[in-house]
């Protein structure tokens, strides 16, 4: 079996992650924020260790500026719904995932104004077009770091500089890049960074979070959830400090134990090395796809301009048919269709039929890429136009 669906969830996981989770379940198990006994302290230490590892990975100076939640979707909802009020203007791109688009649509109905900057069919964004739509009431620029459909990287550092120049906040959806591409929230001028644990960060599903930078006033970022935090228990008001203000309810301790192990695995390997490995695989994949007749590849077709996610179609075949036959006849697992991103597919010209998406991770090998290419070639050959 060849797993090429890492943009949906990374799999398999290195054994360190499973061991950390089993350790938490067997030996720790207590609530990471609610008591002072030794197991509670140990659970809180494990959660803190995950914050610290993520802070190191992402160039965050204070680990307590990371708030944990269930996934990137929750983090993006917190950032968008928590921050934007009637009369605020927000700028985004045409490549965004529904986890940004749908909260923004809901905010539109509450009187928030929205500008969508169009990317090229290759998914490229011209930062000057962002600058051109800034208004006096612009509050936020929200941008996907790399497309989950075609992998194209967006110029976040340049957009970050524009945001700073105009005094705007900058939210980055790093669901597809955290762990796969070097990120530095300070160098890239990012104020809010949403990440998910279960993709390139090597952690389990049900983990993710939001980095909240010092330019975000906490009293202007409303929590989505309010409740028990283990702190200020005498008060019936939500605490105002990080991370408790945005971490009501018991955290996913076992999940965060796994995520911490995943991030430490990446720190040990080095994200630059991860990136180089994935670049090599992507180049090989793009070269191979270009040689198979009737295969149309989307995106820039340049590995350096994207993450290890490639979308294509086969002339004369539906994406769903290609996906099913890859699974049934060749044991190649991938995702077909619209990938929760109708706007991105409109941008690249593949709405509503979608594409076949092969998304690779650090644990994929050259041999798997070659086998997948050979399988696709034989599938195309055996199917008349």
């Amino acid at each position, binding site marked *: 079996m060849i797993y090429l669906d890492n943009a949906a969830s990374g799999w398999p996981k290195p054994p360190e992650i499973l061991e950390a989770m089993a350790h938490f379940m067997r030996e720790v198990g207590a609530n990471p924020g609610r*008591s002072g006994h030794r197991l*509670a302290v140990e659970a809180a230490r494990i959660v803190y260790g995950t914050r610290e590892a993520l802070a190191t990975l992402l160039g965050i100076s204070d680990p307590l500026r990371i708030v944990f939640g269930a996934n990137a979707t929750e983090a993006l909802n917190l950032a968008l719904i928590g921050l934007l009020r009637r009369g605020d203007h927000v700028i985004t791109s045409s490549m965004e995932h529904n986890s940004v688009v749908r909260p923004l649509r809901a905010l539109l109905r509450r009187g928030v104004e929205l500008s969508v900057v169009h990317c090229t069919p290759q998914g490229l964004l011209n930062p000057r077009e962002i600058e051109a739509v800034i208004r006096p009431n612009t509050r936020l620029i929200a941008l996907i770091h790399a497309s989950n459909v075609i992998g194209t990287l967006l110029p976040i550092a340049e957009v970050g500089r524009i945001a700073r120049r105009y005094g705007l906040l900058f939210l980055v959806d790093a669901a597809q890049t955290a762990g796969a591409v070097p990120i530095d929230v300070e160098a890239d001028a990012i104020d809010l960074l949403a990440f998910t644990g279960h993709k390139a960060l090597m952690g389990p599903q049900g983990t993710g979070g939001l980095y909240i930078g010092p330019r975000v006033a906490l009293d202007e970022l409303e929590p989505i959830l309010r409740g028990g935090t*283990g702190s200020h228990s005498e008060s019936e008001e939500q605490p105002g*400090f990080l991370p408790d203000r945005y971490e009501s309810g018991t955290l996913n301790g076992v999940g965060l134990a796994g995520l911490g192990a995943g991030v430490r695995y990446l720190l040990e390997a080095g994200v630059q090395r991860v990136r180089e490995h994935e670049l090599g695989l992507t180049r090989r994949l793009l070269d191979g796809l270009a040689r198979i007749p009737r295969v149309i590849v989307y995106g820039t077709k340049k590995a350096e301009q994207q993450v290890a996610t490639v979308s294509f179609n086969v002339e004369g075949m539906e994406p769903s048919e290609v996906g099913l036959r890859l699974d049934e006849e060749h044991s190649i697992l991938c995702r077909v269709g619209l990938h929760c991103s109708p706007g991105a597919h409109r941008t690249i010209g593949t709405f509503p039929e979608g594409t076949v998406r092969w998304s690779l991770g650090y644990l994929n090998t050259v041999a798997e890429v070659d086998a997948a290419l050979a399988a696709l070639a034989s599938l195309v050959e055996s199917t008349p136009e």
Partner: protein
Amino acid sequence: MPGPDGMAVVLFDSVQAAIQAEHAARAEGIAAKLIPVPRHLSTDCGMALRIPRSEELQVRALLERLGIAYRAVRAL
């Protein structure tokens, strides 16, 4: 309630700040240990950082340098 001789506790708002402080203090070689907040001091989060009283100034300086918010330091 008398505590161990010559000890103090640092009280925090957030459990995660208490953990951060323990981490930083230990890295400086200070014998710091997280304990349940003594009831007579009872503030908020369930954990406090016990330190030798002789190291109080060093710990305060460390927390301020690292920007770790704490509520108070109390003798045990």
